[in-house]
Every structure is written in C-alpha cells, then in structure tokens.
C-alpha cells in the first residue's frame, strides 16, 4: 500500500530529479566507493584532477557503481553476493531508490545503464537455477524490475555496451550460494567455465568465447572498452597458485582472443589476480591492477607487455590523460603510466576495488 508520505516522495522525485544534470553534481569525471576514517562507506565523486566533488553515504560496503549517462544518478551495488543496490542522487547526496534482487538471485557488484539511461542492467547469479542472468530495471518506472535474460554462463560479473548496442558480458564462471560461506565461498572451482559473451541489443546470444581447457579456472571478471571498441578483460586465477597464467585478454568481435602476460618474474608477482582493468585515456594501451601483487601491468593494444608500476594495494583503475587514474586502500589517488604521481591522498580513506569514469556512455 502506498502511504501518503511515499506518494509525496515519489511525486517529488518525479518532478525535481529530471531537471538535474551531472553539472549539478559538479560534473564529476570519476566515481569511487570507499571506506572513510570513521568506518563509514561512502560514494565519492571526483573531478578530472581526482579532487573530491561530493560524498554520498552508502548503507554498506560498495563494490562498483553504475553512472547514469545524463542524470546525476549513480547506482551503488553492495559487494558480491549483495542482494541490494541503492540509487544515489549525486546532486543531493540522497538515496532515492533501493533495488532488491528478486528471490533466488544476487547482484555481483556491477551494473550498466543502457537505452539513454532508461534501463539498468545488473549481472546476477540465479543461484536457485545455477545460471547467470542480466536483471533489467526500468528507471522510468521508479526502477521497477521489468525482466531478466540469460548471460549463457555462470557468475556474470561485469557488462559493457558497444556503440551498436551489442552487450559484452564477463561470465566469471563461479557459482556461490548466499547460504554457504557468507555467500563468497566458491562452489564449483573444479568445473568452472568462464566465458566472454556478446549479446545483441535485444539480448540474443551472438558470440561466446571460452578459454582453453587448461585455463578453465581463470575467472573472467572485469571489462574495459577502448575508444575503438577493443574489449579488454581481466582475470582471476582460481587454480594452483604456483602456476602463472595470463590475467589479461584482448578481443575484437569476430577475431580470436589474445591473451597477454608479462615476463615470468613479473607475472608471478601479480599473484594470479587482476582486480581491475582499464584502457589508457588515449586508448593506445591497457592496464590491469593487482592489489595482492602491489602493481599494475601495462600492455599495448597488441598485448605486448610495456612495464609494471609498483604500488601497494592498488586496485581501482580508470582512463586519465594518456595513462590511468589508480586508487588504493591507503587513500591515494595516483596518475599512473611509466611511473606514478600522487594527485590526492586522504588519510584513513580506503578506496574500494573500482573507479568508474564518466560518462560511461550507453547507447
């Protein structure tokens, strides 16, 4: 039943929010979730020089955010296997909606606005049926859940959209259940099969790539799109930790996947874990971060290793200039390329896994 109060709230939201644009939130260039010195979880908006423009409190630890292409709205997701997400009005700092995953499904920490921001897609595990789906939410209907489509793999984690509307999904391959091991215990490591999947704008499967059998435990987790639409995917190795495997894949539709790795010594130092992936600001190269290995690895567009930049606990990566903006668990925001230059350091702040660059354009 709609109470008078919620009705008024909805009416207010409907009349006030549509007039706002990202300029009303200070025109942020990046969004990042963090834990601040007092232990609170916060979504921050950053300008192009990584200075803080706004902060919006979150109810729990965040993972990544989805930014609306036009409106100053961000959807912040609870960490995997979260069952809720919140819509934050970045101009006011207020939470305007709460999204609850339907029964039997949980979020993976990422999401993407499509169709000029009218729809929000959320990678989810349908744990009751052991399959991955994209949940579809309609912003025009107060973020009502309006459907879901299969991702043709288990554990979809990240999703991006090409300019022709094609969706690309990273199916991590990992099955978890909210009732087992706090929902983060991996239950199918022996038989996991991660994949990179392309879906048409109306969600039909058009292309699916799986890794070679010996790499079936290399979970495809995070995606970056170059300006020329090269897809980069970052992986996390679930196999024997003494083995070194590539942690970056590069792909163009219709072509073969290129797996990229550094020399053995550097590859070992990544500890089988890439936390984030981003193309450089000029799109000529791509980097992956390893907070466990305390470094980022840079590669050219052909997958050739360019070098490492050492920085403890570095994880968030986003395009900046002709290089990257990196964030870490010690509160630092750094311009990174051949070396690094601190842009902002907030003592006591711990940046979470990802930085989101705006506008994350969606068709």
């Amino acid at each position, binding site marked *: 039943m709609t109470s008078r109060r919620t009705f008024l709230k909805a009416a207010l939201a409907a009349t006030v929010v549509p007039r706002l644009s990202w300029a009303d939130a200070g025109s942020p260039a990046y969004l990042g979730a963090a834990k601040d010195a007092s232990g609170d979880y916060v979504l921050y908006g950053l300008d192009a020089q990584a200075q803080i423009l706004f902060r919006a409190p979150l109810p729990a630890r965040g*993972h990544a955010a989805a930014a609306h292409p036009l409106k100053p709205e961000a959807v912040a997701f609870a960490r995997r296997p979260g069952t809720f997400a919140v819509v934050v009005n970045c101009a006011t700092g207020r939470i305007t909606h709460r999204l609850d995953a339907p029964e039997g499904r949980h979020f993976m920490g990422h999401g993407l606005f499509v169709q000029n921001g009218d729809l929000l897609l959320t990678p989810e595990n349908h744990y009751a049926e052991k399959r991955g789906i994209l949940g579809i939410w309609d912003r025009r209907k107060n973020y009502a859940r309006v459907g879901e489509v299969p991702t043709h793999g288990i554990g979809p984690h990240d999703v991006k959209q090409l300019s022709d509307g094609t969706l690309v999904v990273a199916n991590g391959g990992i099955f978890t259940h909210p009732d087992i091991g706090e929902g983060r215990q991996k239950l199918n490591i022996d038989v996991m099969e991660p994949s990179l999947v392309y879906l048409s704008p109306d969600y039909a499967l058009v292309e699916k790539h799986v890794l070679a059998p010996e790499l079936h435990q290399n979970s495809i987790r995070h995606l970056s799109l170059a300006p020329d639409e090269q897809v980069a995917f970052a992986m996390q190795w679930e196999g024997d930790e003494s083995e070194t495997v590539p942690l970056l894949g590069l792909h163009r539709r219709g072509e073969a996947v290129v797996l990229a790795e550094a020399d053995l*010594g*550097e590859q070992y130092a990544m500890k089988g874990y890439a*936390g984030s992936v981003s193309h450089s600001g000029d799109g000529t190269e791509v980097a992956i971060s390893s907070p*466990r290995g305390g470094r980022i690895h840079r590669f050219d567009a052909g997958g050739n290793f360019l070098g490492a930049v*050492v920085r*403890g*606990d570095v994880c968030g990566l986003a395009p900046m200039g002709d290089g990257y903006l990196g964030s870490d668990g*010690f509160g630092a925001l750094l311009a990174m390329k051949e070396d690094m230059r601190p842009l902002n350091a907030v003592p006591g702040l*711990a940046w979470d896994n990802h930085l989101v660059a705006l506008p994350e354009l969606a068709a």
Partner: protein
Amino acid sequence: MRRLAALCFPLMLAVPFASPMAADPLNDALQRAVNTHTVPAVERFAGASHALSYTAADNCLPEAVKPAYNAAFDAWMGLQHLHMGPVEANGRILAIAFWPDKKGLIPRTLSGYIADEDPVIDDPEAFAQASIAVRGLFALEYMLYDDQFDGYEDGSYSCHLVQAIAHDLGRMGQAIEAEWTADDGFALTLLLAGEAPHPLYLSRMESVQALYTMLTSALEVTRDQRIGRSIGTFEKPRPARAEAYRSERSQRNVELILMATRDLARKLAPGEMPLSEAAFEKTIALVEELDDPAFAGVADPMGRLKVEIIGQNITTILGHLANEVGAPLGVSAGFNASDGD
C-alpha cells in the same frame, strides 16, 4: 589519578612545539627496521653470494661449493621476505629463488642447456637475461644435489654452468646492496617516503605499512606454501613438494624465516611484544625439535601432524603481531589485497 591526567593534557599538547625531538613511534620503528634489519640483511646476502661466486670459480665441484651455497641460501632466507624495491626489481626475486617450480621447468631447462652446451654461460651479461629456470639457488641446488646433474667433472660444461649461476647470484647480491644502500637508494625511499629522491611511498606511514605487510606475508607464505605444499592433505602428503628438500634445507628455511620475521617484528614494534615473543619462541622450538631436515617425515601421519602444528603456530604468531605490532602502529593488511573481488 584523574586530576593528574587533566593536568598533563595541556602539557602533552604543547610538546610537539616545545621539543622537536619528541618521540615519534612510527618514525622510530621505521628507522630501526630499515637501518638495523633491512640494511644488514642486504649486506649479508651480498657478502655470502659474492663468497659463493668466488668459491665456485675456484672449484666448481659439488663438495667444494656446498658450504658456500648453504651460507648464501642462509643469507637469502634473511632477505627473501623483503619483496620490495631492489629485491623485486627486474624479476630478481624469482631469478634468485624460483620456487615452487610446479612444472619442473628447472631440470628440463638445465638438461637442455647441458645437452646443447648453450654458450650463454660464457657471457655474464647474456646469462643475466637467461631463463630464470637455469639461474638462482634452485637451479644450483639441482646441479649440486640431484643425481641427474651432480656427477660432472672439473672443466666440463656443467662445471662452467655452476660457475655462471654462482657468479650471477653474486652479481645480483651486489646489485641489491648497491641499490638499497646508495645515497639515493631504496633505504632512503623507505626512510624519507614522500621526500625521498625516488619516492614510492607517500608517507612514512606507508613505508611502515609496506614493511609490516612484508612481515605478515612472509609468515603467511611460509605457512601456506613451505608448510602447506609439503603436508598436502592427510590422505596425500607431498614431501617432494617441500622447499629445497634436495639440499635438506626445508626445516632450516622455515626456522630462518621465523628468526628473520621475529627480528623485523622486534624492530617495528613500538613497545614490548610479549605474546608475539612467546609464540615465536614456541614455534622456533617446534621447528628445531622436528629433526626432519627435508620434511620427508610428512609422509608419515605423526610426522605430518608435527609439521602441520608448526603452521598452526604461525597463525597464532600472526594474530599476536596484529595486536602487538600492527595495531599500535596503526597499520594492517591492505584493504583490497586482503579481500578481493
């Protein structure tokens, strides 16, 4: 008591202005750890690896090289936990100690070099770029201790290969020392943090954080890899996965790491660390009592249990270190590193 505290409070506030020499626990910890832990460790490995290099040059045969080899390995166990700066630059850490070698790359690559008599061993600069599978302490362990390789004669290709590996280790040891202790070296990068000639850490807090992370991850790796790999599962223990079992150093390496990490913990600790001290002492005693140099005993349930218990004691050490060293310094393991997604 309460009144005294109230009186003291304004005085304490005034201290930083009145006395620039006021105690700074974080900076003191950093000075102690860098100057009395890291620098001696770097110097010791440089000396021991250099001695290995000239010993092998003088006589390449296994029995002549082994004492210097073990001394160099001992020195490495006092340094290998410092995965930072010059130790990890250019993939050095793996070039010095390529372990675990799960796919058996070392014996395969060594055999290939020996069969082909690859001339790269005659050129130290080229050898420095050679596969890490034919370099470092574990390649040398095969040459000196493994039946497949240790029967070589003076003047043979294998003899020159041993000399090349020893020389390369000496070269890396000296390079690490030079880069660590230079006027603009890594010791200053740690000590001066943001004001260092080559800044890597933005603040002294970050330098201390990095050293603390080295301390805890060395113990975790020792528990999870050095011990974990060899004990395997109860049904399937894996003695042939023990570190450096060919040279019967598995037990000694664990003991040396415990001593090295205890020293680093003592240098970092802003105060007493009685619980950590007791846990280190107990764990080191358990290792010494093992009398199982190659961890061969893990094949037997009782022997396996003894090694497993050492791993459990390392977990206890880690808990006490968090309370007695990490918490008072205000540092902990990385936010993203410890809990990824």
